[in-house]
């Protein structure tokens, strides 16, 4: 079981709810992913609009835990107010903290991120910071009060997969007891398996499932890959070697001369 802020979850796949072809496909994908945590957001509601209430009804019906995000925020101030508004609507102290710093890469503004994390942790929030794989930034987030870290493995929606495995490996080694969730950049189930094999505790993804030709089937594939990676990590992976090692024992081999 994975312990996140005192909540035990058995699924190690967190799923976003955006960009699906329809609400029904999204709901089916959430079930197929066997996820227990979904990410959601807040946006402006037009006068008389009922879309927000309808969406809330849908996700409540899924029976999963909700992780609101601050997607689209570009400053600590924006992210803090958005988090406070999310707590009001979703009635949870959990917040996936995103403070975007660059329009092209959507990489986090880590300075604003740390500032927002500190304020929100002090205000009783349980913060899931979307960050880079920078260990110094990670240290500051932990010092600010974060008990989970969510490093990217590539830019959001890029589907590149882990572009810097040594950096992810270093982060795992540096924070052996901290729940680490790879957030953003995963494109294929094999990417998810690869980071889980490093010992990451979970992955969070959205686009790779939502934009697949068959999102429900892809959700199943990711769920299986996450499980496979986790089991492989626990089973003890063989380290790569430069030279061949025979797999068939040579003792007792016939000698023909």
């Amino acid at each position, binding site marked *: 079981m994975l312990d996140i802020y005192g909540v035990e979850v058995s699924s190690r796949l967190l799923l*976003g*709810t*955006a*960009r*699906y072809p329809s609400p029904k496909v*999204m709901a089916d994908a959430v079930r197929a992913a066997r996820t227990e945590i979904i*990410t*959601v*957001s*807040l*946006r*402006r*509601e*037009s*006068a*008389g*609009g*009922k*879309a*927000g*209430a309808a*969406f*809330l009804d849908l*996700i409540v019906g899924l029976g999963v835990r909700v992780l*609101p*995000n601050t*997607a689209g925020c570009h400053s600590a*101030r924006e992210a803090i*107010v*958005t988090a*406070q*508004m*999310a707590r*009001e*609507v*979703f009635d949870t102290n959990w917040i996936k903290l995103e403070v975007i710093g660059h329009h092209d890469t959507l990489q986090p503004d880590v300075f604003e991120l740390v500032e927002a994390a500190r304020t929100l942790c002090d205000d009783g929030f349980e913060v899931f910071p979307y960050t880079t794989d920078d260990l110094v930034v990670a240290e500051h987030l932990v010092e600010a009060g974060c008990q989970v870290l969510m490093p990217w493995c590539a830019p*959001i929606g890029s589907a590149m997969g882990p572009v810097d495995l040594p950096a992810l490996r270093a982060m795992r080694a540096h924070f052996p007891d901290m729940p680490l969730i790879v957030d953003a950049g995963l494109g294929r189930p094999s990417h998810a398996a690869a980071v889980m094999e490093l010992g990451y505790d979970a992955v969070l993804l*959205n*686009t790779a499932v*939502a934009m697949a030709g068959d999102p429900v089937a892809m959700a199943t594939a990711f769920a299986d890959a996450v499980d496979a990676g986790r089991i492989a990590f626990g089973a003890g992976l063989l380290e790569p070697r430069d030279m061949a090692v025979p797999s068939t024992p040579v003792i007792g081999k016939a000698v023909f001369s």
Partner: protein
Amino acid sequence: MRTVIVNGEEKTVNASTLDQLLDLLDHEARWVATAVNGELIRRSDRKGCMLADGDSVEILSPMQGG
């Protein structure tokens, strides 16, 4: 009547409190979060939140997110 900015749009409304504004605009008060001039206004504080000309009101509701 007062003129306020609601979700980025200027509106002249017959509402003196945030609570009245939500009613006037037919929002589901339970399912939206509100801020005035960049500060969260909790549900329980909306009745007492007086609006002034030029106030900027944000009304947000749940939506899909990644």
